[in-house]
């Protein structure tokens, strides 16, 4: 058989760019933020203390983003990580404050308990065949509920130095301790993804579960491993959060799951499985922290953060999907798609909806009486 005769000229610019896409994507966005802030608020944004703050915020999400990269690459999802972080943190806090456990024992215990919660998630998904979305969403309620039951609305505060060191310690003249922990977990994750059976099988399971099964890979066991890793990393984040705030309560860490999933997806790991990028996940975490910090620096109201996060997620996923589409149906431009009959129908339907909206608003404004203030 002759060597491949694939025509080299068929390779377009996009094809050659594609392998680096996962890395370039978040990098471009990071540079966009840097550029924008360089113009808008260079003094306050690039202050050393502010950069430290960004890193400190990002560090909290790094272990979880690392583990979530494995889970998502296997075509899974874990929506329970915020609750696992809170419950592990609460359990650790009780062990230290109530039962006088040493922090040196309570911290590894908390991480192990997180791993067990991940194990439960994994077993529910692989043994009981509950879809991951529903399974982890339900377990999110369970873990959060247990945290509330145990803590009863209490805020546990003032912990041993070891914990605050982990959460917000600063290595003099260098970066904060949590950043070191976060980067270490990321590096370990990168190594595991490229150099271990677990990492290799994670990609093959996400790429083709059937092929993995046929080549004798224990698909369910490796799925469970990913959820256990996820649980342990969520618990580690819970420990770091407790240390950072020097306090923990049952309602802590409410939006961990979406924030982490966003960082991983923005980093180019495909929600459809098989495509993993650990460096991309790190870039995604940094990007989200930089963006949120930028909003704060610009004194934009806190509530806009959630709007911005949502917009970034939707636009980046849409961008990746569009770029990875092999066959663009000969569509030369984005507008070409608008000329099909199907698109025409959709446009008419949208116009009808918006028209109704405007009509109702106009009617409301026309018939409006003097408003009575509530309360």
């Amino acid at each position, binding site marked *: 058989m002759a*060597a491949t005769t*694939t025509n080299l000229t068929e390779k377009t610019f996009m094809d050659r760019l594609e392998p680096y896409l996962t890395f370039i994507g978040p990098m471009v966005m990071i540079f966009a933020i840097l550029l924008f802030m360089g113009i808008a608020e260079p003094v306050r944004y690039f202050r050393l203390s502010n950069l430290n703050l960004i890193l400190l915020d990002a560090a909290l999400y790094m272990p979880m983003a690392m583990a979530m990269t494995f889970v998502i690459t296997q075509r899974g999802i874990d929506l329970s990580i915020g609750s696992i972080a809170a419950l592990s943190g609460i359990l650790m806090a009780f062990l230290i404050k109530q039962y006088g456990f040493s922090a040196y024992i309570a911290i590894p215990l908390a991480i192990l308990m997180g791993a067990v919660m991940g194990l439960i998630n994994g077993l529910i998904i692989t043994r009981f065949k509950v879809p991951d979305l529903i399974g982890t969403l339900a377990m999110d309620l369970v873990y959060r509920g247990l945290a509330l039951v145990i803590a009863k609305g209490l805020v546990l505060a003032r912990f041993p130095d070891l914990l605050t060191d982990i959460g917000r310690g600063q290595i003099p003249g260098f970066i904060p301790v949590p950043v070191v922990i976060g980067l270490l977990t990321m590096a370990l994750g990168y190594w595991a993804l490229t150099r271990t059976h677990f990492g290799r099988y994670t990609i*093959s399971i996400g790429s083709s579960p059937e092929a993995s099964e046929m080549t004798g890979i224990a698909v369910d066991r490796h799925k469970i491993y990913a959820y256990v890793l996820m649980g342990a990393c969520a618990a580690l984040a819970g420990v770091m959060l407790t240390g950072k705030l020097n306090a923990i309560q049952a309602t802590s860490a409410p939006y961990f799951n979406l924030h982490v999933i966003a960082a991983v997806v923005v980093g180019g790991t495909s929600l459809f499985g098989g495509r993993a990028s650990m460096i991309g996940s790190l870039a995604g975490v940094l990007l989200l922290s930089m963006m949120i910090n930028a909003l704060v620096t610009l004194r934009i109201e806190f509530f806009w953060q959630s709007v911005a996060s949502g917009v970034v997620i939707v636009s980046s996923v849409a961008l990746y999907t569009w770029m990875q589409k092999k066959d663009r149906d000969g569509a030369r431009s984005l507008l070409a798609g608008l000329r099909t009959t199907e698109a025409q129908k959709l446009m008419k339907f949208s116009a009808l909806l918006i028209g109704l909206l405007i009509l109702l608003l106009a009617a409301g404004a026309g018939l409006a009486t003097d408003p009575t203030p509530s309360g």
Partner: protein
Amino acid sequence: MSDQPLVQMRGITKRFGGVTALQDVNLEAYAGEVLAIVGDNGAGKSTLIKILTGVYQASEGEIFLDGKPLEMASHSDAIDVGIDAVYQTLALADHLTPANNMFLGNELTKTVMGIKMLDNTRMKSEATRVLDERLGVRLRSMDVQTDSLSGGQRQAVAIARAVYHEDLRLLVMDEPTAALGPQETARTLKLIKTLREQGLAVILISHSLDDVFEVADRVHVQRRGRAVGVVQTAESSVQEVLGLIVGAQDAVA
């Protein structure tokens, strides 16, 4: 071709509940020979090779390897004695590189400072070597994802996975050319001939009689769970085999 068959299946019967999928089937495969199995849908081709590769166990009948009775409880037993299969779906993970696919489930490892880890460098060089030496295939790049390869190249990667075991003696290929264009089909048939020249016994399942007459030495025809004839391609024609498949004509089995 030697006189002693490498693999001999004798009186194989397989029942699934009340359904008899195979009835008293005999089959012989010789080293250095391509044997094609043809037949209509439901003729029992797949069941037959699944028994041969240890996926199913026969209800009745025996399998001999080198004249010695062979008991297989699973597919891995078959691999251990040198019988492997390349499935129609190829069982490839599209996002992995060809080398990683070739070693999927059977990775090469090295130990660094007491930690066992994957040896990606050696897997890549071994994959390049096996593809080139055994199959005569050189890929433009070994670092691309497998889904960027052509159909024939993907087939080569799947075959390389099987022939990497030095003690492989019988390779079963289930419809290797079903999803391929003419050019890729020609390449795959050439791969099969290469394997035959290396002294492997190859069993090929195919619906395409053109392909069968191109590469096979003998054709085993199945109809409704029974073996209705074995013909030499050199002494037969597409018409005759077609007649056997649809039952218009019976030969001595």
